[in-house]
């Protein structure tokens, strides 16, 4: 025959047609095809063939009619399959253990990742009105920065004017930059999660009030609602309702409610809620448009659309605010706050990024693939030992699909056992996972139906993925070849296994390269000169009592020899974010540059060891120029800018000195220019910033000597206690605070490290399994070689050579892949490393070494065996 019928049509016929009719049908079709080729040519013939195949797709030929006896047989056969499967598992306990451990670790990872992802995706979903709750952001024209809060006039005005709004709430959070002192009897603590909220808080959010009336709790001035946790902290076993808490040593607040602790998947985490009416200052109570410190939420009616409300806002604001420049207000859905990087103005909460969820999920899938490959490889490698069984079953009448079912069943069994192991591993690993992911999951969280359901689905999928290839190969053995005599694995099987091992190592090597790049970048960011010295720098809260007698306080503190330096600032230099805009009228009348502002004491520069480029820092005289006694329009402000702030104006530091400057209502001039320093993460370019001369500070910065830190700290604390008994000694280290800016990178590096370790670990299981089968298969060859004079060393090398080649190939594939991915990742940083050869060489050497050690163990055993043992039979 010159050409044969279309292969796929033939395959289709074979799979669909009942076995009893198959031979007749296919024979006839083939004959017709041969006939048609001569009559009409190959194209037409193929077309007729297809047509005929489809014409056979009717009930007669497709249905597999079962006789009654086969259903009885089915149970017996499956019992038999199960028995054989168990025997096989226990016959080779070592390999089975490798297999299951690999799969178990993989699925345990998947389980934890699944839990994590579901948790992250479920953020804020418990709010009943969440789908129509929006947080308002604003953005001034021509400015990049999005402000996640709004003026306090916005929410009440909009509710009055827009019928589409059901309700809304303002949240004011002073605590993060100047904590409250909360006191009940002898319990005094600094609290920074105390929010002022409108009485509508419980109309908007679905937090559960355990005691008190949600409608009334936050209506009256000086009402406070606290969480269970806080109730226990302050009142112990006492009943909190109706008691009073003293705040800032001034006002007594009546406890009107106890609220359930906000769940871990809430973007708002608070300890206390205080009624908005508690404000005494008119600045807060009046509806004003010249501020933006209120996180504002709006709840829309069921059928109102956010975009139409958004469109109506500018008109309303224009009418009521009378301001010339109106920011653009945008509505962002509550559900998006956590993952889309939208954010709400609660600096305390680390927002997650969808990107990290993708990375998590992607790595989970990779690990599952690697574990599945292990199973596939080991199962096909072991086929040699199962060949006779398969041949015998076929001779005794098993169809291919019976065997297919048998082997699929086996893989499901193994995966199921691995699944149980995975559950155990997940429970054991949960605490360390919590640390890694910065979450507080408990074991009960894993038993939720969606998690377990999901992981069962995953397990089923893994069983299919891992089992299908071995089942296809094993069920396809031809009885005559496997029963005739010695049976070796087919060439294509060996190639397939090598391919799969290569895939495993591609993944492992790529992850190792990724890990080292992340580590290097992290190291780079930590070691790069910041432009100031943050070693052993303590940051402490400042109270008005300290500020009143500050000179005396400072000199007292400085008498402690381990206190090297001390200064005051509005913020820690790692948290400068207040946004101002500066205009240099001498340079450009119009040009406005956004700057971050920091109010600092006169000795700030020295204490932080920053460098001045030109001019001087703010002086005593400058402070006098803005004293309270001077009428505000006569005050002259001295500003110190960083180099970056001058860049947009295109002037040199020397030129800048003395130039007139205008900054948010402050008239003044440039007193000095400091060298650029990193006050934000190195993801971002150093931003323009300015030092302001106002003496409105929130933080005390103390540099202590680094020797014998523990001892030093306790000495400093002792002195602090004596001098400022009302202010708790709650310090933070500035360098740690700075390092915290990289918490997500740190998380990523840990994650990468862990998963790279796991993948290489699981891959090595696979490798170990494979090499042990190879050595068994080649035992005789090794014996003969040995008899003929080969040394153990050459034999080990010979056996390892195969796998070394695979690793080399994997390396060649993985390197460009990893390079691509990691350059992409690094592109997010303004200050970054180049990917050098180090990580690449490191990964090559590391992987080769680990793989070599793994294989050498087995190959050495095989090579050092006494040839007599393997050769005596036969």
């Amino acid at each position, binding site marked *: 025959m010159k050409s044969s019928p279309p292969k796929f049509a033939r395959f289709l016929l074979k799979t669909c047609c009942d076995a009893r009719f198959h*031979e*007749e*049908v*296919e024979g006839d079709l083939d*004959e017709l095809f041969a006939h048609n080729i001569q009559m009409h040519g190959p194209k037409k013939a193929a077309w007729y063939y297809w047509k005929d195949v489809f014409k056979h797709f009717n009930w007669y030929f497709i249905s597999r009619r079962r006789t009654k006896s086969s259903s009885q047989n089915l149970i017996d056969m499956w019992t038999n399959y199960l028995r054989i499967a168990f025997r096989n598992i226990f016959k080779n306990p070592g390999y089975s253990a490798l297999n299951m451990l690999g799969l178990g670790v993989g699925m345990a990872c998947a389980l934890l990742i699944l839990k994590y992802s579901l948790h992250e995706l479920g953020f804020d979903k418990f709010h009943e009105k969440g789908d129509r709750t929006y947080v308002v952001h604003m953005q001034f024209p021509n400015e990049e920065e999005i402000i996640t809060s709004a003026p306090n006039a916005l929410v009440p005005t909009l509710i009055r004017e827009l019928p589409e709004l059901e309700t809304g709430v303002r949240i004011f959070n002073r605590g993060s930059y100047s904590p409250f002192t909360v006191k009940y009897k002898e319990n005094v603590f600094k609290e920074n999660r105390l929010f002022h909220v409108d009485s509508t808080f419980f109309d908007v959010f679905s937090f559960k009030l355990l005691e008190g009336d949600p409608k009334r709790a936050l209506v009256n001035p000086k009402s406070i609602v606290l969480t269970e946790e806080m109730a226990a902290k302050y009142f112990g076993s006492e009943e909190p309702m109706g008691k009073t808490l003293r705040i800032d040593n001034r006002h007594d607040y009546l406890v009107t409610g106890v609220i359930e602790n906000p769940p871990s998947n809430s973007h708002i985490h608070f300890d206390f809620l205080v009624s908005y009416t508690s404000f005494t200052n008119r600045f807060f109570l009046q509806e004003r448009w010249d501020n933006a410190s209120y996180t504002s939420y709006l709840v829309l009616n069921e059928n109102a659309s956010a975009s139409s409300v958004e469109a109506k806002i500018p008109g309303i604001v224009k009418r009521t605010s009378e301001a010339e420049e109106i920011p653009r207000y945008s509505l962002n859905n509550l559900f998006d706050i956590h993952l889309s990087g939208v954010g709400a103005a609660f600096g305390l909460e680390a927002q997650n990024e969808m990107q990290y969820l993708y990375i998590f999920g992607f790595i989970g899938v990779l690990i599952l693939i690697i574990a599945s490959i292990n199973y596939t490889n080991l199962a096909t490698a072991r086929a040699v030992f199962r060949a006779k069984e398969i041949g015998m079953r076929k001779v005794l009448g098993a169809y291919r699909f019976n065997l297919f079912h048998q082997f699929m069943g086996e893989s499901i069994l193994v995966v199921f056992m691995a699944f149980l192991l995975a559950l155990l591993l997940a429970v054991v690993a949960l605490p360390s996972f919590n640390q890694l992911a910065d979450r507080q999951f408990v074991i009960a969280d894993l038993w939720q139906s969606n998690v377990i359901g999901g992981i069962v689905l995953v397990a089923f999928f893994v069983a299919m993925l891992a089992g299908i290839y071995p089942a296809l190969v094993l069920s396809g053995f031809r009885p005559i070849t496997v029963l005739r005599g010695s049976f070796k694995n087919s060439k294509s099987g060996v190639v397939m296994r090598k391919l799969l091992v290569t895939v495993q190592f591609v993944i492992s090597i790529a992850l190792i390269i990724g890990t080292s790049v992340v580590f290097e970048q992290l190291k780079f960011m930590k070691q790069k000169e910041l432009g100031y010295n943050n070693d052993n720098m303590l940051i402490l809260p400042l109270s008005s009592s300290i500020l009143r007698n500050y000179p005396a306080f400072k000199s007292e503190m400085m008498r402690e020899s381990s206190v090297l330096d001390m200064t005051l600032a509005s913020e820690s230099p790692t948290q400068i974010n207040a946004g101002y805009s500066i205009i240099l009228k001498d340079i450009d009348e119009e040009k406005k540059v956004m700057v971050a502002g920091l109010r600092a004491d006169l000795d700030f520069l020295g204490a932080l060891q920053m460098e001045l480029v030109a001019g001087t820092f703010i002086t005593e005289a400058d402070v006098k120029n803005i004293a309270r006694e001077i009428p505000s329009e006569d005050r002259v402000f001295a500003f110190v800018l960083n180099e970056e702030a001058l860049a947009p104006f295109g002037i040199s530091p020397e030129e800048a000195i003395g130039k007139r400057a205008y900054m948010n209502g402050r008239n003044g001039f440039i007193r000095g220019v400091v060298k650029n320093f990193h006050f934000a993460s190195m993801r971002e370019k150093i931003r323009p910033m300015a030092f302001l001369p106002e003496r409105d500070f929130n933080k005390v910065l103390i540099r202590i000597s680094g020797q014998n830190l523990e001892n030093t700290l306790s000495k400093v604390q002792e002195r602090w206690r004596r001098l400022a008994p009302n202010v708790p000694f709650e310090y933070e280290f500035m360098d740690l605070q700075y390092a915290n800016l990289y918490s997500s990178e740190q998380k990523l590096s840990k994650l990468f490290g862990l998963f790279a370790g796991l993948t290489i670990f699981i891959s090595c299981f696979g490798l170990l399994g494979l090499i042990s089968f190879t050595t068994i298969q080649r035992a005789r060859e090794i014996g003969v070689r040995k008899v003929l004079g080969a040394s153990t060393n050459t034999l080990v090398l010979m056996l390892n050579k195969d796998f070394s080649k695979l690793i080399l190939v994997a390396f060649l594939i993985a390197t460009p892949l990893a390079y691509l991915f990691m350059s992409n990742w690094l592109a997010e940083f303004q200050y970054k490393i180049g990917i050098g050869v180090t990580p690449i060489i490191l990964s090559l050497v590391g992987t080769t070494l680990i793989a070599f050690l793994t294989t050498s163990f087995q190959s050495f055993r095989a090579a050092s065996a006494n040839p007599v043992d393997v050769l005596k039979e036969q």
Partner: protein
Amino acid sequence: MKGTNIGEFEELVLLVVGVLQDDAYGVGIKKELEKQTGRSVSIGAVHAATNRLELKGFLESHFSQLVRERGGKRKKCYTVTLFGQQTLKSAMDTRARLWQLIPENSFVVKPG
């Protein structure tokens, strides 16, 4: 009894199987049918008919010796069972009787 009646196409297939004797397998039947009736017959239809006829007991089948040209597949050859022959005969008889009952001059076409 259900199944003793046969359709027109089935009757033709049965007859062709009788005609072909040893060569009565799928393709053979198809070719002979096409030759005798002048209409094109699909192999699927033939297979459906032979299998149905076998199930009803009008046909018997056996596999032929191995043949080289059919890709090594054996031919499935059919023979008409005694029951099949009786059914064919009775169908023919019925028709003959009916023909005879037609009044002499009503048909232009005459039987025979």
